[in-house]
């Protein structure tokens, strides 16, 4: 999104000729439904209601949105938010070219024009003043004013806004404003149940169920320690990493240390406990 000063001729193509297909999800992503969230999302999409998905890191939020975009066969534009992000990173900005300035749409504007699902990942990471620009798109107006350019964009009928955030690690400074929160319908995600998570690991990586179950057990060990020295438990994503490594022939102890223990903690006591859990599980 950040732009460097580039000295080159503007391409004559207009904004409306953006290749929509590049944003389509081509291959079906593996997604294991936990409850009835797929049907609920479809209902929200039919009515173009903005959606917020929340849940701990690595529990499948982004995967779910990707899967829904594939299922609905709509383009998906994902923006990973960070604290340096400003409103113009979302909406667009003027660039310079040989003949003066040129407007370049930001990802949110593009999505509104072409009718894509715009997914703002980890929205709380963005500064609060940034998130305000999405307000007009999320209520009945469904418009996006580009004040710098003096244009008012009517959102495409297929356009939908989705945001995700992780209520776990937010701090006081990083919370969504009530005025933002109340513009969305919500999906709460959590780590799947042990059986479900086992089958997810098995399906995603091809690891046998017995070992997958052991990995899940270690995952639960860490999740029990949340708040006792761990900010977050071991995510499904990390379990998938471990399973992938084991499947590749890495010894389970090494795989678990590498994928499950080292990434989440520097606390020697917790590391010790987790390693004991690994030893006790992969006996």
């Amino acid at each position, binding site marked *: 999104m950040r732009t460097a000063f580039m000295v080159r001729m503007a391409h004559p193509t207009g904004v409306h000729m953006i290749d929509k297909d590049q944003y389509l999800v081509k291959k079906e992503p593996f997604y294991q439904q936990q409850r009835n969230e797929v049907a609920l999302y479809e209902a929200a999409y039919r009515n173009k209601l903005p959606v917020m998905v929340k849940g701990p890191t690595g529990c499948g939020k982004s995967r779910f949105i990707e899967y829904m975009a594939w299922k609905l066969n709509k383009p998906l534009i994902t923006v990973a938010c960070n604290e340096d992000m400003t409103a113009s990173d979302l909406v667009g900005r003027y660039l310079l070219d040989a003949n003066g300035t040129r407007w370049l749409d930001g990802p949110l504007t593009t999505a509104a024009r072409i009718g894509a699902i715009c997914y703002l990942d980890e929205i709380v990471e963005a500064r609060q003043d940034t998130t305000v620009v999405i307000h007009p798109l999320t209520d009945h107006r469904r418009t996006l004013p580009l004040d710098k350019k003096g244009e008012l964009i009517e959102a495409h009928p297929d356009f939908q806004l989705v945001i995700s955030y992780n209520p776990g690690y937010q701090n006081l400074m990083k919370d969504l404003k009530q005025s933002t929160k109340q513009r969305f319908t919500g999906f709460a995600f959590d780590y799947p149940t042990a059986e479900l998570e086992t089958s997810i690991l098995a399906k995603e990586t091809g690891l046998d169920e017995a070992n997958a*179950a052991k990995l899940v057990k270690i995952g639960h060990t860490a999740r029990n320690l949340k708040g006792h020295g761990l900010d977050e438990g071991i995510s499904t994503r990390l379990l998938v990493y471990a399973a992938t490594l084991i499947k590749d022939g890495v010894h*389970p102890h090494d795989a678990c240390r590498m994928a499950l223990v080292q990434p989440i903690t520097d606390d020697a006591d917790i590391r010790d406990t987790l390693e004991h859990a690994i030893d006790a599980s992969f006996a």
Partner: protein
Amino acid sequence: MTAITTEQLHAYRTRLDTRFAQVDDIFEASMAEAIISLSSRGIEAYLDAARALGKLGRGAEPMLIFLEEWPAVAAAVGEDSLPKVMQLVSGLQRSPNSRAINAFLQTLAAVARRLPSSEQLDDYLAIVSDLTERTTGSIHGHHTTFPSPGLPEFLAQAPFLLNQLALAGVKNWVDYGIRNYNHHPERQAEYFSLQSADSRAVMQRERHGTLFVDVERKLDLYLRGLWNDSEQLVPYSTAFDELRKPIPYYDKLGIRVPDVYEDLILPSPVNGESAARGAQPVGGEGEAGGEGNPPSPGASRHPLPLAGEGLSISGLDRYRATLAHIVGHRRWSQPQIADNWSPFQRMAVEFFEDCRIETLLIREYPGLRRLFLGLHPKPVEDACDPETTSCLRHRLAMLSRALLETAGAHGAPYGELNAALDHTRHGYTDPALREFVERFHELMATGNASTREIAGLALSYVAKTRRQSDQFAKVHFDNTVIDYRDDNRQLWQFIESGDEEEAFDEKRKIEPDQEITGLPPRHYPEWDYNSQSYRPDWVSVYEALHPSGNAADIDKLLQKNAGTAKQLKRILDLLKPQDKVRIRYQEEGSELDLDVAIRALIDFKGGAQPDPRINMSHRTAGRDIAVSLVLDLSESLNEKVAGSEQTILQLSQEAVSLLAWAIDKLGDPLAIAGFASNTRHDVRYQHIKGFGEDWNDEVKGRLAAIKAGFSTRMGAAMRHAGHYLSKRKADKKLMLILTDGQPADIDVTDPRALIEDARQAVNELDRDGIFTYCISLDPKADEYVSDIFGRQYTVIDRIETLPEKLPELFIALTK
């Protein structure tokens, strides 16, 4: 046994050259023992030494003790140590400590048994002579006049100490006692007889093995993480119960575990046997393959505690085994009514139930099997003779071993391999045992089974294998004690108060709660620079909210300093965090900086090289500093400042008010506390402002009420303030110490001691990421303050200027 002839005995007796009649009573027996354990040269030396002891002029006692004890000592450490022992004795004889000779000789044999080599005995002797030398007193230059008060006590405790501590630990313990109690004979004797709390605490610190206090958090995490359980863990002391070793247990008040577990070195035969038998892998890879793990070349690189060469189980793992076992009971055991069962039946039920829950635990975490097996004794099948001894305990221990060895993954989720498990791999041949192993696993294959079902099985086992000899008083105990299991008190429910129970342990009346007047003290260690070690839990810090005074006084002070405040305000406004700061001339940024961009465009059009840095971005400039201000409120603050009507206390008050006001304006979290001490047992730490409090009238009221008194034990106060500050989540943590003199207290004679302790406290805080800074009002501070704070200090010579200086200093520090 070599017989001695009467003539020989007579010859030896003559060599003793003594007329003490008591010698005759023991001489023959002692000589018989001596002849077995000593060489002929050794016997000569033995008799010579005994004769010398008889002529010390201390009666028959030393000689008698020596005659009795020496053969045993020589057997343990070798007879060559005799000259050194005699040297020590003659040293004691020449000093005022000659009365300790008896005590020394008395425990020598017991000591020697715990010190298997003569080098170690030498070390022990060195400790004894060191103790003698350093604690023997002298008055007014007279040479050694009164005896060491601690020596006889130490000698009496020596065998016990060596049982608990390694030799190096004993040395540290002795050193500590000498250093701290050298000038206090009664305390010294108390210390060396292990009666003072201090002495026990230091001993606890020096004990070998895994101390509970060191692993408490790990165990707590273990309970939470692996078992999703949490309970208060209460250690009980294992050091002072010689006769009855306490056993782990749990009740409503928590899980009781020993205060120390030593690493368990497994005897190698266990491994050797199993390796020879092949079908019974105790540890290692054979098993891993059998239970469905893909065999991997990396397997051998992960020796579990039990696998591989050096078979030992760490103290931590022993704790874990105990906790796992207790968790099992808490999860799966239901209390049974005990009244109708005999003690034998109850014992069997306990064994079976322990095995049931362990099987369930192993299903949960297969790795526990190795741990349990490593800790479980392995009774030898025919070790107990049923003709003479009660063997039920032995039979049950064997059965328990067999059940653990065959515990596998029956009914485990996700289809573990059951077929690979051989129900006879325990290697015991007794048919009843084999039958019940089968029946046990059949029962467990149906699910978790219940305590009631397993009790049924246990009862039929007792009935089936009952022998007359089970009633015998002589019970076979070898290899049947399973020390990680709890005492199963939660398994039983008594309807009637039975015969076994004595009426005198009636319900204890619980004392009515005393009104709590304050927080309990927190204990902090203190650094002892002489020994370069900490004195554990040395200082008691009592904290409280400072009493309140009149808030208007502080407002008056602030008004008085309105001029300074105005100046400060200007600086503060500059310092105040601006939410956004624009950074221009960025190649990459969030927005186009039009001025620069147009200039670049003009350059470009004019054919010159354009400046590519045409963007700008923003940066949030926030301050994230937590400040803790610690005020020395010792007596000396009551002194008047030269050339002024105000006391140092009043000036400090003014300065602190101004600083607190300034920091409040900046919005940094600030805590203020004052401290004073009256010996190590009473360090007062009074909160004036908490981090969460605003600069309001309540806080001002407390600040208005500050009073000065007592001494300055700075290290403890800094540790306590650091304890709070380290919990803050801030990028930068600053501790300001405002003091007017050097650390000192009335119970410390060495002026360096508390300075060194404060310096150590600064190091500790530094390690925790806390920046300490001292503002000293003592014009002579240069002599010591840099020793404590390095370069992080300012000495304010003109104390009148403190109110202006202090906030300025703070601002300079945090700019």
